[in-house]
């Protein structure tokens, strides 16, 4: 008998489950070296400090480059993004913001590049372009820039010796202690013979790790907690690390994540994406959004700067 469940996420954020219709797209998966394929608990000791990395972005203004004549106007977007980290010291019961990097970019379509003069106090836009002309592609370029900045920061922190949890998949596949934390499922990586483990996961349990050879990553699913009135995937998130870290470190990181992440899940009244959006990351996002600056003010600055370009 099928069950009907209301997701705790706010509707505007979509849902945690967004599976592609075509399962053939899923890459091949091989169980790792952790013994029988059944739910595992873990009680790893906490590291003294963990860094969480995330980024936020915001379009500041839509631009149009009009060359006149028969050429169609070219769309552009000016936007800001911020990436940053929270360092959590579990033993000291304290967390603080780490380096916050803010970038502002102007992206134009069809390879066009627009240079804006400095638009206001500390506001410098760097120029980028997309070969396509759809607004969607501009946003992709913008988003991509932020993802790169996130990845750079995560890599920098991991290199500095921190255990890093990055919000979203990881891109730089170094052998550092860096875990990607994925809260939205678009692909079910597990084939039918393995996927039965998901409903069996209890709160604070994970699957053994599995390899995704095509992506050069190791991964595992874990459930953040027990949720009344939930469904079989409620509170399930996926983590990934680079192959390069090796099996041993994969297991260590999987165990740490299984201990740590359930402690950090948020509650529905606190966060529209509870429980998957972790408390430190929610706090970080709030701070990053704030640091982007006042949107109406920046829009005005951009407008003024564009007028200078025209002169």
């Amino acid at each position, binding site marked *: 008998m099928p069950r009907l469940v209301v997701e705790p996420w706010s509707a505007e954020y979509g849902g945690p489950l967004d599976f592609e219709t075509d399962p053939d797209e899923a890459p091949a998966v091989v169980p790792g070296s952790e013994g029988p394929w059944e739910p595992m608990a873990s009680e790893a000791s906490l590291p003294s400090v963990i860094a969480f990395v995330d980024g936020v972005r915001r379009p500041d203004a839509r631009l149009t480059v009009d060359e006149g004549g028969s050429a169609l106007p070219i769309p552009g977007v000016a936007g800001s993004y911020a990436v940053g980290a929270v360092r959590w010291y579990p033993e000291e*019961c304290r*967390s*603080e*913001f780490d380096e916050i990097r803010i970038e502002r970019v102007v992206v134009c379509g069809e390879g066009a590049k627009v240079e804006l003069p400095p638009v206001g106090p500390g506001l410098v836009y760097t120029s980028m372009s997309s070969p396509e002309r759809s607004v969607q592609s501009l946003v992709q370029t913008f988003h991509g820039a932020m993802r790169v900045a996130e990845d750079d920061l995560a890599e920098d922190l991991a290199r500095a010796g921190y255990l890093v949890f990055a919000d979203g998949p990881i891109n730089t596949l170094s052998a550092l202690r860096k875990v990607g934390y994925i809260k939205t499922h678009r692909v079910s990586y597990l084939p039918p013979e393995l996927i039965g483990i998901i409903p069996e996961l209890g709160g604070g349990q994970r699957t053994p790790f599995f390899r995704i050879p095509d992506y050069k990553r190791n991964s595992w699913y874990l459930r953040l907690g027990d949720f009344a009135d939930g469904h079989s995937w409620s509170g399930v998130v996926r983590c990934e690390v680079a192959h390069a870290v090796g099996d041993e470190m994969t297991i260590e990181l999987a165990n740490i994540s299984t201990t740590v992440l359930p402690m950090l899940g948020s509650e529905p*009244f*606190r966060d529209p994406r509870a429980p998957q959006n972790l408390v430190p990351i929610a*706090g970080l996002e*709030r701070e990053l959004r704030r640091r982007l600056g006042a949107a109406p003010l920046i829009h005005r600055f951009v407008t003024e700067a564009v007028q200078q370009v025209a002169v």
Partner: protein
Amino acid sequence: MSDAVGRVVAHRHSTTQEFRVVIDDDQYLQLDDLVVVRTLVPKAGEVQTYGIVTEVEATYEGATFESDTRLIAEKGILPAAKVRSAEVAVTRVDPELWVAPDPGGVVERATGTERLRALYADTMGRALPVGIARDGEPVYVDLDFFDGRTGGHMSISGISGVATKTSFALFFLRMLTGRPDIVQEAANNLRVLVFNVKGEDLLYLDQPNKFFTPEAEQAWRSLGVAPGPFPSVSLWAPPRANSGDAVVPDTGGRSEGVDAFRWTPREFIDEGLLQFLFTDATDNRNQIPFVEERVRSQLQRFAVDVAGEPGAVVLRDPAEGHRRGDSVTPGKGERVIRDLGSLAEAVAEFIDPDEGEPDQRWSGRVQPGTVSAFTRRLYAAESRLGRLVAAGESRRIDRSVAQVTVVAIQSLPDLGQRFVVGALLAETFGEKERSGQRLPLSVIVLDELNKYAPREGQSPIKDMLIDIAQRGRSLGVLLVGAQQTASRVAQEVLENAALRVSGRLDAAEAERAEYGWMLPSTRARARLLKPGTMVLSQPSIPVPLVLEFPFPPWATRKEEVATEGDPFEGL
């Protein structure tokens, strides 16, 4: 020298009245701290804005819900910024260019000369320290606003039981009498009249306090007065009733050094003290004051001294031709007035005789009932305060023998207390009225002002207090009035007090309009002030200041008196 403590908060508007400060991580600001901000004003140059901290707040920025506190402080998984900020009320802008301090401006703690400027001490001609601020430095009042040059009088409010009002009044007096270097010519021959209305707290002003501490000594020295009991005090009390011929002061714990006071019938008549026997608020509703006024003036016309009996008088018709200063030998059967009882009987013979018609020169054309009421009250007064009037050598209070004159009236019934207060106020004010000079100053300390100058009703004492409040400052008669609730004291008396002081207040009382001079934050605190802490408002500073005054070096109870050596030593 100043040091930075934070910056003017930028996310809210700063105004010429108030601004907020976000406090640096390694600094603090507490209530009543003084700060200064320098603002560069276009075309005008640097402007200094001085202010006083009226509230201090702290919060986690980044916390959206109250329960986020646990995530931040207990589990530490939510990053947040602890922010401490302070609300500052502007006290002064210098030069006087009323602009708001710039957001982000560096806020410095005002110390040294900056602190004095924040408190306008540099503009005060004579800045008298009247307490210690929370920062341990003195707080000043501009004496010009007390001694009558530009303002006068002090009003002290506060609930009873914490002994704060009288203590502060005395502390203020000690500052006034102990700093002639600041008070200058107004200190010459300064005289203080203090009424002791409850307990015997004020009868030990000239005795050292054995509980006086070295810390308190330090505080006194920082105010520039060597701690010690009042150097020049005379103590007066009414004579004990039924003590025969011996005149013994009616005090409990202390009798040595206390003089008994009373008035002779001659003094009673000459000074018109009869009016102060009719001070009950209800006396004014009927025509009793009319009769009293008439009787008072007839007594002055009729009274003739008795030869060989100082202070005693007989009543003779002025038509017989006797003059002031004459003394006569009373005829046989002639009534000699030696006390209040015989005075009452003598008056009754004129206005309410057992036989025949009353003498209308004395009674006027009033209803017989009014005359009876008058006589009844006169006889009643005799039984209650008869001991205050007796023939014999003059024992009136001599306010010139010492700087501070303490009159102990706590043993008298209400009527008697009002009589003494009325008589002495009239005497003091009369003297100054005749001289017409502001100096030397005469300071009167009167507790329970609501009893003597109540908001409702009329009485000769209330009239006199209003007169003192209104005209006293130019005549150098300065009232230091104290009351539990200012809302029950005559408006005219309160309004004329340039210096307003308050100790702990009842919560409901603190909300009344009489305390409009306090800031809302000060009002809220007024409910919590501990003994020894007062709020002071003066015309030269636009915000009230909170101050503490040190423990007194004089005793306020018999048990506190420090004796020379241990009397039981060697036993």
